[in-house]
């Protein structure tokens, strides 16, 4: 199947969707991240946090130097919706996201 997929996909963005993740042999994908709470249904709110998990890891590891937009979105979301997060620092929230 798709002998030269890479060539084709990269040029044109062919419909890779049928393959993305389905041939992986694991249910992994970027979002599960070994998190205890990652399986099962995720509400829209949880999703913001889950999507930010890898960004949060980069942020914690680099002491704030690596700071992606998904983390930024999760910080804003959590400060607006979570009482505990309201007055916490960026690093504290990033650590909490990482520990989800």
């Amino acid at each position, binding site marked *: *199947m*798709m*002998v030269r*997929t890479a*060539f*084709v996909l*990269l*040029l*044109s*963005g*062919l*419909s*890779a*969707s*049928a*393959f*993305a*993740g*389905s*041939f*992986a*042999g*694991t*249910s*992994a*994908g*970027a979002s599960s*991240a*070994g998190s*205890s709470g990652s399986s099962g*249904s*995720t509400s*829209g709110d949880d*999703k*913001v946090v889950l*999507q930010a998990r*890898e960004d*949060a*890891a*980069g942020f*914690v*590891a*680099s002491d704030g130097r*690596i*700071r*992606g*937009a*998904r983390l*930024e*979105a999760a910080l*804003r979301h*959590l400060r607006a919706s*979570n009482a*505990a997060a309201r007055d916490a620092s960026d690093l504290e*929230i990033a*650590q*909490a*996201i*990482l*520990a989800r």
Partner: protein
Amino acid sequence: MPLRICRRTALAVLTCLLAVPAAASGWSVTHTAHGAPLDARESTAAFAAVESVRARLPPRWRDADDLDVAIEWRNDLPETVHGRAFGPHLRMRRALLAPDDAHARESALLHELAHRYDRSTHGGLSRDARLRDLAGWPQRPLRLGTRVRENAMRDRSPDAYELTSPAEFVAVNLEYFLTDPDYACRRPALHAYFAAHFDWAPSAADCAAALPFVEAEASGRETPLLPLDPARVYAVDYLLAEGNARPMSAWGHSMLRLVICAPGRPAGPDCRLDLQHHRVLSFRAFVDDVQISNLRGLTGRYPSRLFVLPLDQVIDEYTRIELRGLQSVPLRLAPDEIASLLERAATLHWSYDGRYWFVGNNCAVETWKLLHTGVPRLADARLRSITPNGLLRKLARSGDADASVLEREDAVRAGFYFPSADTEYQALFDIARTAQALPGTTVEDWLASEPESRASWLATTGQRDGAALLVLEHAARRRNELELRDALKRRLLDPRQAARVAPAVATLRELLAAGDGLSRPAQLIDGGYGLPQAAEQVVLRDGVDARALKLRGLRSQLEGEARAALTVEEQARVAALDRNVEMLGARLRALHREAGGLQLD
């Protein structure tokens, strides 16, 4: 108005002649018959039809000069032809004068009168560049000034005859514009075009604010139906997936990012961080077979489809799996331009069935066509480009895209640039090495090592280096997935393994067939034309939801079959990688708890 004597010497039988009183009109209509003269009933029907049609016409058309027509009602038109227009001479099918045919009679008459109008100095619609863009005869990117011959707006056409030529397109669409109150909602851009031309519009239905889209890849358990209200779209960015070292991907891939505001948030800059609501419009070749062929891509044998995808998925695909950066450059568009751009996108989504050509009709060409048809201001030949990065350069040069965002210090943080995930891998490895004496000096050594050999290091991390190693474990797992995918592809193509992989191939074929429906949603409903209206959307929802459910089932079945096709060693490696990620996740949670860190729930 003087009576006009209609005399066609070519006709053996001369006929009666009737003239219509031209009360409120600038032009006259005469009726003649081929064969026996029109009887009283036929005459009445012919008169009434003309008056009824005339009453529907826009004032500018009705009152125009030099549009006189001589209608000849004939019995000898070919079976499928209702009428023909030769300059001022219209030949109409005489059978249309039968009592029950009022609707067909008036439609046919309107159609031929539309040809008469279009060919006159008042009309010229079918020669207008804008009309041809909207209709589906766009310019070719490579040959200056020429347009494609074949109209690919095949799906959900009210009458396939409109695809014959721009002249027929105009005649058919003027019929609908003047007689169908839904035309404004089904073909909004064409309705606006005709309304502007005539400076008048017939009374029309109220259109729903939201444009219907179907997502090719609905996440989770949500329905793939995506009603999109243009007022909720704060901005549209040109989204460029950067090229990489592979030969033909140096050009990159062009897409459009819709900055959709979260429900309840007023449209404004704050919407830029509502990432999970953003969607991406991406033209892709739809691969309908298990085996991809370069030749088919070069010779236009794949359909080109407009996919609607969640931004989150696009970020993952490009930055984490393909390891390419994404540039998100805002286009300078007014709100009404965003609305017309989205309207055009919706129209393509429901009607376009084009072909993908690697050079002549690739993603950049499709995006360029969408931009300048959606936003006429951008219909400037200088913007034309056949490469994604070329198009961005030109948009930036003309001031239509604000590329300065890429220079901003907060470009990454604010979501104008999504770097490839691997740009930080070495830095993260170096961070981890300051905490523990990890083997190897480059991150490549680390990622290439056996997962089991990394496990003991992962068990003893601190919080900061553990975070760094978590990113790298994910990277290792994704890399392994890609390698397995390649290995599986080879196995699926290997005739010696045909029996073993047959179930997976069958599933994959089914998956492709099911995905076909969601990327070309016109296949999921019958009835109506153009953008689906409320009643059609109800039917659509059931079809779409069933399709999505089937897709999810097939996908997990394929996963299972793919897993079964792995060797024991490969399965062990997958399990080891999963274990590493699980273990490290658990360790980070434990460290966080011990440190008394913030708990979110």
